[in-house]
C-alpha cells in the first residue's frame, strides 16, 4: 500500500501537532494537540490497512489518554512555569 497525498498531509499534521504539544506552555492546549496527533495517527494506521492498531490508537490516543492528562492537569497546575 502506497501513501497518498492525503496521508502525507495527515503525517505532516501529526508531526506539527506533536511539535506544538512539545512547545506549548498552556497544558490544556498541549493535551488537545496530543489528542489531535493521536487521531491523525489512527487515520494513517487505517490507510495502511491495520484496523486493530487504528482502533486502539483512536480510542486510547484520541480519547482516553487526553482525558487522563486533562484530569491530571485539573488536579495540579495549568501552566508550565519555568523558574528563573
Amino acid at each position, binding site marked *: 500500500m502506497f501513501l497518498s497525498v492525503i496521508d502525507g498531509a495527515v503525517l505532516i499534521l501529526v508531526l506539527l501537532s506533536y511539535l506544538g504539544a512539545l512547545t506549548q506552555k498552556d497544558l490544556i492546549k498541549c493535551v488537545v494537540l496530543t489528542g489531535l496527533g493521536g487521531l491523525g495517527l489512527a487515520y494513517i494506521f487505517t490507510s495502511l*490497512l491495520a484496523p*486493530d492498531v487504528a*482502533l486502539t490508537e483512536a*480510542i*486510547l490516543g484520541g480519547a*482516553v489518554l487526553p*482525558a487522563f492528562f486533562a484530569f491530571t492537569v485539573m488536579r495540579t497546575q495549568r501552566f508550565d512555569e519555568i523558574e528563573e
Partner: protein
Amino acid sequence: MKLSVSREVAVSLSFLLFGAGVFYSIYSIEVVEGVNAIYTHIKIVPNFVSAVLFDWRGFDTLGECLILINSVLVTGIVFGKGLFNWDFLKEVYGEEKCKDSDLGFTPIVKVLAVPMGVLLMALGILVILGGHITPGGGFQGGALISAAYVLAMVAFGVRRCPIRFTYKFLESLESFGALLFLILGLLGMVLSGYYLYNIREIWGIPPFPSPPGVGDVGIIPYLNIGVGLKVLAGLSTITVLLLSQRIISKNIGKG
C-alpha cells in the same frame, strides 16, 4: 452572556448538520466489506491478528495485561488506598472539601452524552464478542466501554453519573478478568501440557460454538472476554481515582 448564546447556536447548528449527515448516510447505506474482504480473500482463518495475539504470542499478551495491572496498582497506591500519611496529598486535597467535580456543561452535551455512552458501550461489547472474526478484540472493546464511562463522568460529574460503577466493583472486576485469563491458560496446561495452549476441542466438544464457515477458534473468545473485562475495569478505575475526591478525602480523614 453573548458569547455563551453564540456558542449554543454553534453547537445546535453543528448538531443539526451532523445529525442530517448521519440520517442521510443511514438512508442510503451501502456496506463496504473493507479490510475483511482482503482478510477472507487471502483465506486467513478467521482473524490473523487475533490468532497471533492470543495463540502464537499468548505470553506477550499476558505481559501486556500485567503491565496494565501494574499501572493501575501504582495509580491506586498514589491516589487511592495507599495514601494515609502523605503530606503533599493532604495539601492538595485538604482545601476543597468534597467538591463535586461537575464541570458545568450545557444541556446539549448532557443530553447527548447518555445515548452516545450507551452506543459506545454496545459497540464495545460487540467488538469484544466479535474479536476473533472482525478487527478489534478485548483490549479495544474494553477501552471503548471505558471511554463511554469517561464521557459520562466528564459530562455529569461523579455523583450524578448515569453509569454507576463503584470502586469496589471495578477492583473486583479487574481481578476477575486477570484471573480468568490465567485460569484459561491453566486449562491448556492440564489438557495438553503447555501453558496458554489453544484447545481445539475438549472431549469432542469445541469450547466456543461458532457457526459453520468461521473455523475453529478454540478458547480465543474467552480470552478476549477476560482481557476486555480487565482493560475496562483498569481504565475506569484510573478515571474514578483521578476524578473523584470523595474516596481520597475519606482516606485522608482516616490517616
